[in-house]
């Protein structure tokens, strides 16, 4: 059969065509995403032979009991959520004015330049960015020098450093959806509000913001969930701190079921976050 006869057969049978088109991506989705996630969920209820590291496939609630009962996991979960919330707040606070400027004020040319400028960090490796922050924050680094001018030192490695670095790394993921949301706000609405006598602050609060919230929500889902799962930044600039990702990592070698159980925590937190976001109705407007 030649390619053209195959294609004519396929063109006569849309069902086969669709099936063939979707077979591979769907198989991947099921195998890589659904099965992997299910395996993770199941593993959390297994246990392990402490020496050989062999999984023992017997159902137990020990791991779940451990992560809900021990103070360690509460502390680390709270710290991780705290970092994720702060990162999201900082990124939103930057994205709101920046996005407005890019979409409504900047000239065509500088708008393109700004978009490129905000996308640029995405072209560099994650590790390079985290390590760059390490040298910025270190003793004798740029922040130490700049802080010294106003009588402060570097915040050093630790909680603040994690928040700063993560806020930097995930910023493009918040700026872009917010910018796109502003773009969709018709200029005529702003004019109409002005004509009707609304001051800029009122226009922003009652006209622009409600239209931008879906973009903000989309961005915050990125920054929040990406921060929840991170462990590399913590390793590089986190000092002696640990986040949930680090607990997963340290246990993945010696106790996979416990690591799987810990990995459930961010999943649950993000699901709660999504549920809360959904209640605001922002998801329907996406």
């Amino acid at each position, binding site marked *: 059969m030649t390619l053209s006869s195959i294609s004519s057969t396929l*063109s006569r049978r849309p069902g086969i065509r669709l099936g063939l*088109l979707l*077979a591979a*991506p769907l198989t991947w989705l099921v195998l890589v995403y659904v099965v992997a996630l299910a395996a993770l969920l199941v593993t959390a209820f297994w246990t392990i032979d*402490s020496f050989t*590291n062999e999984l023992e496939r017997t159902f137990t609630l020990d791991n779940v009991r451990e992560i809900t009962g021990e103070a*360690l996991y509460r502390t*680390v979960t709270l710290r991780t959520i705290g970092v994720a919330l702060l990162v999201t707040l900082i990124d939103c606070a930057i994205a709101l004015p920046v996005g407005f400027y890019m979409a409504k004020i900047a000239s065509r040319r500088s708008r393109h330049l700004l978009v490129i400028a905000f996308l640029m960090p995405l072209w560099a490796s994650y590790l390079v960015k985290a390590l760059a922050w390490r040298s910025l924050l270190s003793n004798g680094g740029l922040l130490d020098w700049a802080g010294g001018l106003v009588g402060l030192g570097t915040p050093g*490695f630790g909680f603040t450093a994690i928040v700063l670095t993560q806020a930097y790394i995930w910023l493009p993921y918040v700026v872009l959806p917010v910018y796109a949301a502003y773009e969709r706000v018709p200029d005529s609405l702003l004019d109409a509000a002005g004509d009707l006598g609304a001051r800029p602050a009122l226009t922003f609060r009652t006209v622009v913001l409600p239209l931008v919230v879906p973009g903000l929500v989309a961005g915050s889902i990125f920054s929040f969930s990406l921060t929840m799962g991170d462990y590399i930044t913590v390793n590089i600039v986190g000092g002696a701190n640990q986040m949930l990702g680090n607990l997963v990592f340290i246990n993945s070698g010696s*106790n996979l079921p416990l690591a799987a159980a810990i990995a459930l925590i961010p999943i649950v937190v993000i699901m709660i976050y999504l549920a809360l976001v959904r209640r605001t109705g922002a998801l329907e407007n996406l």
Partner: protein
Amino acid sequence: MRNIRTRHTIGAAVAALSLITLSACGGDDGDSSTGAVDKLGENEGEVSILAWPGYVEDGSTDPEVDWVSGFEKETGCQVTAKVYGTSDEAFNLAKSGEYDVVAASGDLTLRMVAAGEAAEVNTDLIPNYEGIYDFLKDREWNTVDDKNYGIPHGYGANLLMYNTKDVTPAPTSWKAVFEDAPKHKGQVTAYDSPIYIADAAVYLMAHQPDLGIENPYSLDEKQLAAAVDLLKSQRASVGEYWSDYTKTQASFETGDTVVGTTWQVIANLIDQKKAPVEAILPSEGATGWNDTWMISSNSKSPNCAYAWLNHISDPEVNAQATEYFGEAPNSDKACEFASEGHCETFHAGDEAYAEKIWFWNTPINDCLDGRTDVECTDYQDWTKAWSEIKG
């Protein structure tokens, strides 16, 4: 119409392509046969090695430091090397089955054997094995049930490093990172692995004899709790923990860290102009490593793996490698090739000295010190304790 036909052709082509991709992705798992081989075949042309930093150097770190290129030329086995920072990390990587050879410390070897990741090694096929110190052969970390699982590489101690400008008077005891740690609050470092608990246990052995610790890898619950308490109070002064050796190197150079545990190789790598550092073996003794070259049970290049094991235990190569890392070599012959004083510094072949270093071992429920009236804490307990210490 023309346009629609084109779209269908493209659709069909994409569908066909994705099916091909799918079928090509079906993996084949190499069978993992055990039992040592009794003769070698032709070299496979490549070998991948998982090792501590500084163990597999091909001149890319320092053009003067190269014992890989010669091996590649001689045997035709192209070497790809991956370095790791902790034994836990190595265990995860080794389980992927992608590495033919693993350089493993004593807290890893037995786990490798127990998990079926290590192949039995026929030492008769490694001519250089004969010259290796007898006291390194057939030890509990490289031999299980009279079966050999690897070739001894070298051994050394986890040292105490300090910045001579900032830490005065010069410390002689691990006290510098425990009781005296608050003096350098935020600038103390420690090795980021559960096995570091043994360092605290070594300190307690000397300073709190009533705890009755006989072996730092064999702690009952009360003894572990004492070590954890000590490490928790240390935690308040720790600026950061390290497992990546380049991170601790940079940290000492910038002055973010001034005192903490280290390896000799890190002390060697630090630019003395940036930070004047000294690494010492404190009076309490220390934990240490005694490393073994193992072959993966999933190795697809066993012949090249054997060739590497023989190459790395060649006295001249072993001298280079162990000197670069800063540890005692595995044979007297190697000492003839090492720089003057190297074997004396590291007490190579000095059995009595080696007895003082507590080589990394895997903590298990059966107490390693021979106690039978109590159950000891195992590595999982240590991992949990370590997470709690960091908080």
